[in-house]
């Protein structure tokens, strides 16, 4: 029962992250306010995602210098780069924030004061996130299929 709850949480969290990554690419669709608050919410979602995957992180970090298959090593390096890029994107997003951060800090920021250098870096990192998310999904595809099957089987069983 506890395992199912954990699997369901991980599954829906991952789906939320995936939708958020796509939504964050288009500021015009979400609007700047939702874009910035969703970006900040990503911090909590990513931390929760990493905490749910903690045993994998510990195991693979220990095995990284020892014997590891090419798949495991690639997955580890990909995830490391993904975390780095996401952190950079969130940080640069905070620096160019016009709505969320001024609301939280109470500072008044005019749009003309926005640092274009950081805005450009934020855009580049955001685009990189889309590709890394796709590869992250690709390398964990089998897990996703198995989790989808499990979660929807639980739904069907509880409905009967």
């Amino acid at each position: 029962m506890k395992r199912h709850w954990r699997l369901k949480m991980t599954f829906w969290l991952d789906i939320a992250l995936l939708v958020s990554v796509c939504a964050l690419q288009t500021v015009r669709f979400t609007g700047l306010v939702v874009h910035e608050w969703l970006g900040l919410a990503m911090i909590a979602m990513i931390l929760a995602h990493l905490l749910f995957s903690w045993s994998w992180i510990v195991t693979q970090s220990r095995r990284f210098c020892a014997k590891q298959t090419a798949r495991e090593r690639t997955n580890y390096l990909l995830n490391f780069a993904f975390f780095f890029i996401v952190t950079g994107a969130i940080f640069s997003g905070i620096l160019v924030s016009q709505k969320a951060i001024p609301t939280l800090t109470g500072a008044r920021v005019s749009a003309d004061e926005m640092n274009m250098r950081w805005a450009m870096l934020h855009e580049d990192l955001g685009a990189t996130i889309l590709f890394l998310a796709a590869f992250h999904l690709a390398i964990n595809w089998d897990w996703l299929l198995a989790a989808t099957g499990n979660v929807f089987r639980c739904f069907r069983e509880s409905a009967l």
Partner: protein
Amino acid sequence: MKVVRIFSRLMLLLFIAAAFVGLTAIYGSSTHPALPNALYQEEQRHEPSSPEVGYFSQFVGYGIMLAVFCYAGRMLFRLRLNPAPHGEGQPIVLGLRGNNRRA
């Protein structure tokens, strides 16, 4: 005990994230890219605050792009990263001798 464990893991993750933020800050302040044209800068500075449903297709487009790259990645990883089957490079044993003996 469980709360302490989760808290310590969280602290470790935040510590690593802080190191990444430091590296990004160093990179961001050391590079001096050419600024884009004035029109682009103006667009960047004045993004709409509220959602515009008309741009839903853009969201779908990014979803499709993600799916395409995921498919490409899947093909790449399947070809490159899956270990070769155990029997690869080994002669195929047909077991004909055993069959003759039985016959």
